[in-house]
Structure formats: structure tokens, C-alpha cells
């Protein structure tokens, strides 16, 4: 195809061998090396990218958490003086934006990147370089958003940026420009990642892994990717309209010119409601992996689980206007959306019942991961029930824009999503790093978090029903809000301590592992069920030594255990014997590349230019253009990168499955036949 795909040994006219030219200008040769910072910067390995996502999200969690603490400090007592009105607006806006777009979504991306290919038995994702691009795009988008603090003020129009309140008249600083452009960049990351992962799941399942044998987590993540695929363009348009209004003087939200402010609300919530499920479904999937494992039972009602996930994803498109009951959408809309909102509680309820039924009669093991999952089920149920009260429009009229709403969505997103993700951290940590996190510290962090969480957000129900408004910077002493606000602030700091324990746990466990105090774990420390446990921990770069042939759901568990005719479960093999040891050699993997990070770097430049000076944009645009062409002209596989004997590059690039293809070894690992290992 291009010069890069050909062997790069340049022949001298004299026939002499020449030094490799790439050494003089390294920019366009493929990066090399498996260790050091370069190996992370230019990696296209889905597991490393997953870990990067997780690490970045945890850092943003700290940022968003500090913002939350500032809010709580400000509201701790009547007439708080920690933040000015303006600063308060910025802090609560950035808290929401950070937590939704820079913490929960990337955490979900971390799990999907790390686990999806493993769970379907694939070597990598379909487009490894696009995957790397998604991550850098997200990271630079997040950094771009946060640089607004230093560049004239952060966004101050609320995380949903209602126009025209977010227009130039009411928000004259550059903050909302950062919001519009920053979310655009992270949106690109999500969209690209969604397309990539859908192709991965549809096209790269291992032999016998039909859709209906996939773990529930894979299903939920797949549904989330579809939601992202179709929801992101809507917010893209809304953000463009806002940006054109602000930067070029368009009239989309200019009421004086006849515009209707509801346009923004509709567009935002058409995106925003599927977004809610984008945030929660990954946690549902994680809980559906953790709970059966530690209940020693298969998941109760697998098809119901999957179908209710699909139903949630589908119905999530028809309920958006329940965010707008008080905005004057009209009685028919209110009635219709009220009804559809109540319907969507049904599949959610099905899921909760299924988890309970899974635990029912199981031999429960209360590991930290299990505790977090159970906590998430409980907290999500509370949040879900308070959500049903919003579905009733008259009640919602009372609750809108009060702390009751704040309580509701924190119970759902913090109590549901974040606790679920933490459960996932404890569960898959040994898979990613080869050692378990300390259980005692983990349990401590769980109980502290639960206490702090309920102390923070429980009182907000009361405050909301008392009439305390959201997004107010201060309240007076005679309003009667003082006590519960003080409680909530105490709770917030207890929560912070819970997270601190979690971070300390990571630090200490890692240290213990490095110093040899903590034993490395085997492939399957929890006696788990899905395919990712069927390879060594930490997962070798090539994932599986040979292809796995799947013949039923929970294939890995069935290879370890046998169900006798009388219903007794007997062990048929040790996990170590069934699992791959990661020693396979000669597997052709996609090569690292510079272009994803370069391309992602161009986008914030474009955005800064639109805000400050168009010349920066032009530079950014050139970077983007050049990177795209460099990317296209670069062969996805560097023929020199791996000195393995076997190169099937002709077969692969020729058959139409394209540049992103990943090689599979020639021989499958069929059924319970571990000896069939060859290359």
C-alpha cells in the first residue's frame, strides 16, 4: 500500500545495507519497546488503554471530589463564605461535568476496553489505533475543560448548560465556550470508542461465542455503545448550536429573534436521558458478573437480564421530556412522558429482582467486591424509587430544582454507577495487575463510603422536600435548612475519607506486592465464570494463547465444574489447568503508533483557537489533517515490529477485514482440551 508497508530496508545503489533512516527523524517510524513511558503513550493494547482510562478517571474523580467538598463547605452553614456566587456557579457546574463526562463515562470505558475483548475471547479491539485515539481524545478534552479555571473562568451554566442562560448575555466569560468545545472533544472520543467496540463485539467473538452466550457485562457494554453511537450526535448538534450562538452570533437561542429556549432542553435531554443509562448500564453489567461469582450460582434469568438491558436502552429514548415537566412542554407531552417514564422502571425492577434471586439460596461470600455490588443494588433501589416519584408529574413539579433531585441522581449515579464500578475495581484488579487489593482495607473503605454517602445524600431528600433549591450559593439561617446541611457536609467528608482509604489500599497493596509480601494470584482468584479469567493474571499482551471454542454460557466455569445428574456440582479441573498460562510466542499483535496521540493533540488546539485566536485553530487543523493522513498512510501492522516468524499480513489485509486486523493463532483451544496447543 504505502511505502511504510513495504520492508523499510532501503537498498543502496551499491547494494550495501543502509542504516535505518527512521532513527534520524523518529516521528514517522513506529514506536518500539514494551516498557517505559513510551510504551504507555503510544500503546494500542486494549488492556493498557483500559488501565489508562481507569487511572485518568480516578484523577478526575479526585478533581470532581474536591469540587464537591468545596460545594459542601460552602453550604455547611447558613451564609457560607467559602465561594463567591460566581465561583460557586463554576464549581457546581464543573463538578457535574467532571463527574458525568470525565469520571463515570471513562470508568465505563475502562471496563469496556479492558474486559470486552477478553470476555468475547478476542485478541484486541477491532481498531486498536482508534482505541488509543479515543483515550487521548478524552484525556485532552478533559484537560482542556479544566484549563478553563486558569483561562478566564470555568463553565458556569450548570452541567446541562441550559441556553439561553448559557449564552453570551448571561454567561459572558469563556467558560461556556470551554464547555461546548470540551464536551465536543470528549464526545468524539465516546463516538469513536462506541463504533470501535460495537465492531469488536459483533465481529471478533471467538468460535462459538454467539451473542446469547456473552456475559451480561458484555451485553450491557454493547448496549451502552449503541446508546453512545446514537446519542452523541444529538449533543454534538446542541453544542454546535450553542457554540455558533456564542462565537458567531447565531440566533438559535436568541429569544428576541423568535427562538424558543426549549430547543436546547429537548436536544440536550434527547441525549441526556440515554446518557443516564450510559452511566448506569456498565455498573449493572459489573454487578451481574460479581454477584453470581460470589453467590456460587449462575446468574438468575440471564435472558431477562439481557432483554431488560435492551429494553432500558430502547425505552431510554422515549422518556427525555420528564426532565422538562415544569418547563411548559404542554399537558399531553407531560402525560405521555410521565407514562413512559413509569414503564421504564419495569425492566430496571426486573434486574434488581434478578440480582436478589441470584443471591437467594447462594453460598454468599462477602468479599469487598461483593459488598460493593450489594451496596450498589441497595442504593440504586433507593435512587430508583425516588426516581419513580419524579415520574409522577405533579410530584415532580414540587421536586424540580430542589435538593430532592440532587439526592435522587446521586443515589443513582454515585450509589449505583460509582459503587458498581468500585466493585469492578476490586473484582478485576487481580486480573489487571496480578495481585488482589487488600480485603480488610477494602471492607473498611466500603463501610466508610456507605456511611458517608448516606449521610451526605440521605438528608438531601429532606432538604429538597423542605424546599431548598438547587444551585443556590447560600441560604439564610431561618430557612430551617441548617441541621441537615451540616449533616450532609459531615457526610461528604466521611465519603472523602472512604475514597482516601481506597486510594491508600491501592498504594499499600501495590507496595506489598512489589516487596513480595503479597503473593501473585493465579489466573482465577475468585473462581469466576467468564472468559477473562481463563488466561494468566496479569493478562499477557496477546490475551489468550490459543483460540477458545465456546460451547455454552459461562464456558470457563463449566470447564472447571461439572453438574452431575443429581444436581451435584463437582470439580472437573483446576482453574490453572484450564486457563492459559500466557506463554504463547510468535503471536502477531498490532503495533504501537504515534498518530493517535498526535491527532488527539490537534483537537484542543482547534478548540483553543476558536476561543482565543483563529491562528491556533489553523495550526490545530493542520495537525489534525496531517495526523489523519499519516494514520491512513501508515500500515496498521509494522512488519518490523515483532520479530516473529509467522506473518500472515497478506492474508489479512487482503480479505477485506482491513487494516485493523489482529491475527489469531492458527489452532483453536477446543472444549476441555488443553493439550491442543500449537502454533
Amino acid at each position, binding site marked *: 500500500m504505502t511505502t511504510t508497508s513495504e520492508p523499510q530496508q532501503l537498498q543502496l545503489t551499491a547494494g550495501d545495507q543502509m542504516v535505518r533512516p527512521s532513527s534520524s527523524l523518529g516521528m514517522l517510524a513506529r514506536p518500539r519497546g514494551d516498557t517505559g513511558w513510551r510504551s504507555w503513550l503510544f500503546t494500542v493494547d486494549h488492556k493498557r488503554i483500559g488501565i489508562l482510562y481507569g487511572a485518568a478517571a480516578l484523577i478526575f474523580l479526585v478533581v470532581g471530589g474536591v469540587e464537591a467538598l468545596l460545594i459542601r463547605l460552602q453550604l455547611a452553614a447558613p451564609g457560607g463564605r467559602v465561594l463567591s456566587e460566581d465561583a460557586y456557579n463554576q464549581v457546581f457546574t464543573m463538578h457535574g461535568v467532571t463527574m458525568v463526562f470525565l469520571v463515570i463515562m471513562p470508568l465505563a470505558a475502562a471496563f469496556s476496553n479492558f474486559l470486552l475483548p477478553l470476555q468475547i475471547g478476542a485478541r484486541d479491539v477491532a*481498531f486498536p489505533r482508534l482505541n488509543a485515539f479515543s483515550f487521548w481524545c478524552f484525556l485532552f478534552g478533559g484537560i482542556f475543560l479544566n484549563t478553563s479555571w486558569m483561562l478566564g473562568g470555568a463553565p458556569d451554566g450548570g452541567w446541562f448548560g441550559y441556553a439561553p442562560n448559557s449564552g453570551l448575555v448571561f454567561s459572558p466569560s469563556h467558560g461556556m465556550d470551554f464547555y461546548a468545545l470540551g464536551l465536543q472533544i470528549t464526545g468524539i472520543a465516546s*463516538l469513536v470508542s462506541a463504533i470501535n467496540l460495537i465492531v469488536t463485539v459483533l465481529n471478533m467473538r471467538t468460535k462459538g461465542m454467539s451473542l446469547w452466550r456473552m456475559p451480561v457485562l458484555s451485553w450491557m457494554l454493547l448496549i451502552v455503545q449503541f446508546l453512545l453511537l446514537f446519542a452523541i*450526535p444529538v449533543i454534538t448538534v446542541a453544542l454546535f448550536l450553542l457554540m455558533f450562538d456564542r462565537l458567531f452570533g447565531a440566533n438559535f437561542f436568541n429569544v428576541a429573534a423568535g427562538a424558543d429556549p426549549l430547543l436546547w432542553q429537548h436536544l440536550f435531554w434527547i441525549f441526556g436521558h440515554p446518557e443516564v443509562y450510559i452511566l448506569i448500564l456498565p455498573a449493572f453489567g459489573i454487578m451481574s458478573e460479581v454477584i453470581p461469582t460470589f453467590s456460587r450460582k449462575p446468574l438468575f434469568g440471564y435472558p431477562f437480564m439481557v432483554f431488560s438491558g435492551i429494553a432500558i436502552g430502547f425505552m431510554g429514548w422515549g422518556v427525555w421530556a420528564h426532565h422538562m415537566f415544569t418547563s411548559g412542554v404542554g399537558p399531553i407531552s407531560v402525560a405521555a412522558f410521565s407514562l413512559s417514564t413509569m414503564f421504564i422502571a419495569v425492566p430496571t425492577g426486573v434486574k434488581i429482582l434478578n440480582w436478589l434471586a441470584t443471591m437467594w439460596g447462594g453460598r454468599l461470600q462477602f468479599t469487598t467486591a461483593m459488598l460493593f455490588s450489594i451496596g450498589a443494588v441497595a442504593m440504586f433501589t433507593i435512587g430508583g424509587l425516588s426516581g419513580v416519584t419524579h415520574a409522577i408529574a405533579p410530584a415532580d413539579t414540587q421536586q424540580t430544582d430542589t435538593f430532592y433531585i440532587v439526592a435522587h441522581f446521586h443515589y443513582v449515579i454515585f450509589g449505583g454507577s460509582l459503587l458498581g464500578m468500585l466493585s469492578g475495581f476490586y473484582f478485576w484488579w487481580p486480573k489487571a495487575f496480578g495481585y488482589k487489593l487488600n480485603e480488610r482495607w477494602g471492607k473498611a473503605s466500603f463501610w466508610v463510603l456507605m456511611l458517608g454517602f448516606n449521610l451526605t445524600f440521605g438528608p438531601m431528600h429532606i432538604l429538597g422536600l423542605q424546599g431548598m433549591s438547587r444551585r443556590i450559593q447560600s441560604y439564610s439561617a431561618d430557612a430551617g435548612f441548617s441541621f441537615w446541611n451540616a449533616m450532609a457536609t459531615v457526610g461528604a467528608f466521611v465519603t472523602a475519607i472512604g475514597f482516601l482509604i481506597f486510594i491508600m489500599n491501592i498504594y499499600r497493596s501495590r507496595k506489598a506486592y512489589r516487596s513480595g509480601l503479597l503473593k501473585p494470584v493465579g489466573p482465577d482468584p475468585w473462581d469466576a465464570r467468564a472468559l477473562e479469567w481463563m488466561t494468566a493474571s496479569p493478562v499477557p499482551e496477546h490475551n489468550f494463547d490459543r483460540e477458545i471454542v465456546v460451547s455454552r454460557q459461562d464456558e470457563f466455569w463449566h470447564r472447571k465444574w461439572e453438574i452431575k445428574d443429581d444436581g451435584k456440582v463437582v470439580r472437573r479441573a483446576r482453574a490453572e489447568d484450564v486457563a492459559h498460562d500466557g506463554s504463547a510466542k510468535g503471536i502477531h499483535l498490532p503495533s504501537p503508533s504515534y498518530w493517535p496521540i498526535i491527532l488527539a493533540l490537534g483537537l484542543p488546539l482547534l478548540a483553543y483557537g476558536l476561543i482565543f485566536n483563529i491562528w491556533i485553530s489553523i495550526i490545530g487543523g493542520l495537525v489534525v489533517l496531517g495526523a489523519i493522513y499519516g494514520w*491512513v498512510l501508515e500500515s496498521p501492522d509494522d512488519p518490523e515490529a515483532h520479530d516473529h516468524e509467522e506473518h500472515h499480513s497478506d492474508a489479512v489485509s487482503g480479505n477485506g*477485514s482491513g487494516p485493523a486486523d489482529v491475527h489469531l493463532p492458527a489452532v483453536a483451544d*477446543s472444549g476441555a*482440551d488443553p493439550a491442543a496447543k*500449537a502454533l
Partner: protein
Amino acid sequence: MTETDTALADPAPEVAQEQAPQGHAEEAVAVQEVGGTTTGISHNKLMMWLFLGSECLLFGALISTYMFAKSRLPEGEIGPLDVFDIPFTSVSSFVLLMSSLTMVLALSAMNRGNERGFRIWITATSLLGGTFVAGQVYEFTVFYNHGLGYTTNIFGSAFYTLTGFHGVHVSIGIVMLMSLLMMNLRGSLGPDRAERVELIGLYWHFVDIVWILIFTIIYLFPQ
């Protein structure tokens, strides 16, 4: 276990637990899976279709924003009836439709291995696309001279945004077409990589489809 398997087996010792219930399928699997995909569809094509599915929501939002904005245009402001030049836009639509034809002919030529035909038709496609964009710039200029700027009123903002988005899509498409042409001229895009042409073609046809919608909904529907 068959003889072949033992012969191929890695020297690393691994204990066979029990007889494989379905240990006979390996060979077929190996052949199928090297480069094959689960659905038999190439990654790239699936990616392009997913992208186009996502674009439906993008243009849907823009078109409905336009329709809504137009309906909210205050009385007496400069509106569609004052500026639209249907005969000219009809020609533009025709040009874009024909570019879809030339695109599909380019792909067909490439599939047959007729690279000369491919080059001719791909050039014709980009030229027709260029003509379309030139027509759009002409149209914008005329509208502007009639007094409809981007910031003039809500109709102006919505109209220029919608058609501008489409125009940018066409322009990006032309750049991609020219890149295809250049890759072919450099010898790196032959019939064995015809799928690349097909992908860009899909994008191009989609842009054409969007114009079919815009032409009818924005220009032809009774105002």
C-alpha cells in the same frame, strides 16, 4: 485428539484432562478465523455503516432545528420565499445525484480491475462535487447580497448551519475522493483494496441522501 494435533503440539507440557467432546473442529476454525470475522463482514464496512447510522441523528437534529427555527421566524423578516432560487438548487441537486452515479461507476470499474475507468469516474465525481460546492458558495453569496446573513435572523442561522454542515461533508468527501485518486496514481490503491473505494462511496452516497432530504424539506415543501 488426532495425530496431527500431537505433532503440532507445543513442547510445553500440559496435562490433558479428559477426552475432548468437540475436539474435531480445530482445522476448520483455524481456516475460518485467520482474518475472518464472526459476521463475515469486514470491520471497516461495519464501522462505516455504524458511523452513517450515527450521522442520521446528527442531520436529523439539524433538519428539525431548521424546520422549527423557520416556523418561529417573525413576520416581515427575510425568509425562504425571499431568497430561494429553486431552478438553481434543482440543478445543484441534479449535480449531486449524478455524482453518486459516477461514484458507483468508479467503484464498479475498480471492482472489475479497470483502474483507468476508476480514475476517470473518481475525477468526474470530485469535479461534480466541486461544482456542487461552487454552486453552494454562489447561492450563499447571492443570499447574502439579498440581505440574509448568518446573524440576520433565526432562519438565516438555521439555514446556513444546516446547508453549511452538508457542504462541509461534501468538501471532506471531495478531499477523500482526491486522496483515493492520488493513492491510486501512486500505485497503492488497486483492485485488491477496492473496499476503500466502497467505504468512501458509502459516505458519498450518504451525503447525497442527506441532500435529497434537504432539497425536498427545505427548498420544495410549500413554505
